């Protein structure tokens, strides 16, 4: 019963991150919101593992953490290259 409350709090984090992802004035804000969304995804995978008592969901959490790293790196690199290209022009 307690895990439902925790899942609802993490859903609140997902809502805040989605709102910042949609509203974000600059593109760097959107990448920060993406980072929060991936952290919430890892937390939700852990809660799934706890509520079903299956350790398989922790493997999914490992995969989500790896995808989070690669996605943040690629998007911030793209942003940096775009702005440096703009400075050259």
């Amino acid at each position, binding site marked *: 019963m*307690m895990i439902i409350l*925790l899942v609802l*709090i*993490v859903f*609140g*984090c997902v809502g*805040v*991150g989605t*709102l*910042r992802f949609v509203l974000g004035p*600059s*593109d*760097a*804000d959107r*990448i*920060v*919101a993406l*980072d*929060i969304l991936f*952290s*919430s995804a*890892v*937390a939700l995978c*852990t809660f799934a*593992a*706890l509520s079903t008592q299956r*350790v398989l969901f*922790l*493997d999914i*959490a*490992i995969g989500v*953490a*790896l995808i*989070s*790293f690669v996605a*943040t*790196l690629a998007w*911030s*690199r793209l*942003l*940096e290259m775009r*702005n*440096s290209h*703009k*400075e050259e022009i």
Partner: protein
Amino acid sequence: MTTVGTLFIVLGVLVLLLASSGLFVLKDALSRQHAATKAGSLGIVMIVSGAALIGGNWSWVWRAMVIVILVWCTMPVASHMLARAAIRESRSKDEVSDTEL
């Protein structure tokens, strides 16, 4: 063991909530990144280690240790790149506003 794990999970969820509230309290992309990545990594580590304490099995523990090591190795690199992109973007926006003025 279950009590300590539940306490860890509750604290981790509160830290994650604090990190996501920083997205709206702070005003700049750089300071939002400061709140989000730092507190997010602490929250994930506390949630996962609490799950390992509740699970109690060795298969839970080594997967949780893999996640903790992965997060602690990759999150500073990602936040560094993110901060550099945010600084670069704010600087280019300032230059655009200067030329428009």
